[in-house]
């Protein structure tokens, strides 16, 4: 299906590295772009964290560089704080973790793990990357466009978002980014289902491939409602429709010229119909990566492979019926709250099953504490904290108090940062030798690991304490509210930890750059792993496999009794198996 003649890689620089159709080049494009967005999003939140810990004081070093309109005398304004908040969420989720976990890892690894020579639609793949790139650059450039960056949070609740400046750019960018994800989802599904190597039945697929396929379905079904909603909000703003504006509103003393009939709750429903599956879009690829790393580093098959796969499928279905647990106190019928309470409790079941399977996978193994394994191991307890703290938020009654406090901020950052990002970092160390034929440095990898894990807990754990004290999220100056003062010093702990977390990314960045050019050279299978991506050269040439592989075994043939080695690759025929 691919349109390139394999063995005849495109020669021109532009076709090879810029407008590339090779899934590996596109994967790396996504990889580097998404890390840049993650770093920018992180930098934004450092400014916000300064404001939270020391409200009303000039931001050190960079405060004077910001336009006096946004930060007079280096002191952040409420508008800038809200812009940074909206952009931090948008960048981290839509331009950082989704493109990294889904598009970057998926593009590079999925075709290799199924023994394919490329994606099913290489040109759609290229279009997907460039739509993402343009959408991302437009999103960032909104800071210098008239109206500035969006100020209504990544959730863009109507009607605030309808009246706030900067929202139009946000909406246009989102339409581009969503379209990019939809193209990617179609491509991944088609590739994963149709281009598997001979012998690679569905239940011989590595967990990572399953995770990517379920993620694709989530993107394919959950993103269109948000895209439609974004277009409707765009029309409200530029064509003066009123899909989300009711009649009779008076904003700052002026009657709003809208015909009315719209519903702010409709936006919330449409947004969270995407928003909740989106959580699993962030999480499933990370879980897939953790499973791959665990299997290779315990030298035994995963415990409960089928339980993990069925649980992922169950999450895929259930994640579409839990969205309104974000809306318990939104003013929707309290009766609906009971329904979403029950579905929310049900969806914890497959998540617990996956986590339990991961832990039992350690039992009986021979655990190698390699750098990727450290990240995979850290995922389990830290994601566990994220999952457990979801319980009082998913329960209608306790959510009345905890809703929109720092408790929820702590909860979802434990899920997404110490869950997804930790796993994605582990994935970088794990597959780096495949991408560049060289290893990353172990010592600096461990410095990065221990520093990051400690700092992440220092950033996010205080948020639970602040939240239990009743402090709301999204406050530009929390000290303006007296009831926030008793817990305020925890904000300082959090801010200092955030600075340290940034510091501990330096060894990682240097390690990646150093590794690409000067890292220790490795063979094609440095971890002695069994899945197909380790059966082709590192880095794989255009077209990947020298001859199309054939699959004979389950994905995790570790420590197979009687076999001469402790790993039996999927593509090696052996009669004892």
């Amino acid at each position, binding site marked *: 299906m691919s349109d390139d003649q394999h063995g005849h890689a495109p020669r021109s620089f532009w076709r090879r590295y810029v407008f590339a159709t090779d899934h590996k080049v596109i994967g790396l494009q996504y990889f580097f772009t998404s890390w840049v967005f993650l770093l920018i999003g992180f930098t934004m939140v450092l400014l916000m964290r300064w404001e939270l810990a020391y409200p009303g004081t000039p931001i050190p070093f960079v405060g004077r560089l910001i336009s006096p309109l946004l930060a007079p005398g280096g002191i952040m304004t409420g508008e800038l704080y809200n812009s940074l908040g909206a952009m931090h969420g948008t960048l981290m989720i839509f331009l950082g973790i989704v493109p990294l976990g889904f598009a970057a890892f998926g593009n590079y690894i999925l075709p290799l793990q199924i023994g394919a020579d490329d994606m099913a639609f290489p040109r759609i793949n290229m279009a997907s990357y460039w739509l993402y790139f343009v959408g991302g650059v437009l999103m960032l450039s909104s800071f210098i466009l008239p109206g500035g960056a969006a100020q209504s949070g990544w959730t863009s609740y109507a009607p605030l978002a309808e009246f706030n400046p900067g929202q139009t750019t946000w909406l246009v960018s989102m339409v581009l980014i969503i379209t990019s994800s939809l193209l990617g989802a179609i491509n991944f599904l088609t590739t994963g289902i149709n281009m598997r190597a001979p012998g690679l039945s569905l239940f011989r697929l590595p967990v990572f491939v399953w995770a990517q396929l379920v993620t694709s379905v989530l993107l394919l079904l959950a993103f269109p409602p948000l895209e439609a909603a974004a277009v409707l909000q765009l029309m409200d703003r530029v064509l003066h429709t009123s899909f989300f504006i009711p009649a009779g509103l008076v904003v700052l003393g002026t009657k709003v010229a809208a015909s009315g009939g719209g519903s702010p709750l409709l936006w919330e429903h449409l947004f969270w119909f995407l928003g909740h599956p989106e959580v699993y879009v962030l999480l499933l690829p990370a879980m897939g990566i953790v499973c791959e790393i665990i299997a290779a580093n315990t030298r035994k098959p995963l415990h409960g492979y089928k339980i993990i796969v069925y649980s992922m499928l169950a999450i895929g279905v259930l994640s579409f019926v839990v969205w309104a647990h974000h809306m318990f106190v939104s003013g929707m019928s309290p009766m609906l709250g009971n329904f979403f309470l029950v579905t929310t409790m049900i969806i914890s079941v497959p998540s617990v099953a996956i986590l339990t399977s991961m832990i039992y996978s350690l*039992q009986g193994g021979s655990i190698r504490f390699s750098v990727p394994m450290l990240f995979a191991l850290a995922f389990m307890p830290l994601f566990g904290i994220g999952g457990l703290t979801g319980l009082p938020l998913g329960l209608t009654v306790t959510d009345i108090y905890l809703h929109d406090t720092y408790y929820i901020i702590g909860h979802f950052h434990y899920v997404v940062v110490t869950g997804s990002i930790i796993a994605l970092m582990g994935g970088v160390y794990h597959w780096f030798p495949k991408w560049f034929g060289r290893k990353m440095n172990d010592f600096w990898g461990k410095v990065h690991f221990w520093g990051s894990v400690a700092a992440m807990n220092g950033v996010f754990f205080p948020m639970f304490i602040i939240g239990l004290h009743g402090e709301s999220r999204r406050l530009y100056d929390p000290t303006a509210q007296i009831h926030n003062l008793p817990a305020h010093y925890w904000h300082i702990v959090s801010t200092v930890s955030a600075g340290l977390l940034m510091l501990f990314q330096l060894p990682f960045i240097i390690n990646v750059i150093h590794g690409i050019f000067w890292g220790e050279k490795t063979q094609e299978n440095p971890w002695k792993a069994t899945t197909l991506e380790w059966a082709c050269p590192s880095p794989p040439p255009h077209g990947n496999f020298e001859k199309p592989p054939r699959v004979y075994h389950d994905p995790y043939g570790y420590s197979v009794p009687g076999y001469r080695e402790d790993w039996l690759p999927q593509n090696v025929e052996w009669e004892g198996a």
Partner: protein
Amino acid sequence: MSYAFNWGLPPAAASFAPEIDSGIALIHWAMLIIFVLWGAFFTYLLIRYRHRADVGVSLDDTTHSLKSLVPDVIVMIFEIGLIIFYAIPVWAHIKMKFPGGNEDPVELNVIAQQFAWNVQYPGPDGKFGRRKPELINFYNPIGLDLTDPAAQDDVVLANEIHLPAGAKALIHLSTLDVIHSFGVPEFRLKQDAVPGMEIPVWVKPTQAGTYELACAQLCGFAHSLMTGVVVVQSPDQYQAWLKSRAPAKPQQAAAPGANF
């Protein structure tokens, strides 16, 4: 009052607050126990099954076991219990059963706007005066229609709510512009105000005192400044306050069409 560990929650000052607090405490103890047990098992596995050159992998009981579902069953039972015996009844009590009839609640309108809380009491006649959005101006923030007889004795306040202790209050929550959220941490109460909707909220304050009312939903650049006070007084003090605020004589009705 002696100090008791309460997970950092602020003092409770409403009738349903202890029910919410006990749920938060129960869930956090459960979370702590689960995490500690689980962490101990995890640590044991890491030490027991670390890589050693002379010890191989044991493949017993790894692939076809259902034991990874055991924790699930335990968690399920705990969650089903929480849903049936805690969440659904308490939720119905707080959000679905509103005072009325012979309970004779104190009624008031809270009308949120960027960045203030407007409060309307019906006055001695017990009837809210009509509000019209086109009448809103600097001097009439809620657009009270003074041609309406019921509006004559209404008490309109900004960022200040008075409630009697020990009595139920029924608040009709609405907003003029964007979504706001009515949050009083000591009451354990939070409810969004949504444009185009009037949402009922009830509370029965139990402790006299002054509490902070703060907007809990991002509403614009001055969101963090959108605060007010809730003054809970003894019923006598509350009645005295209400009398002191009632307009002495009928208010002047603005001429039709004149907004100033």
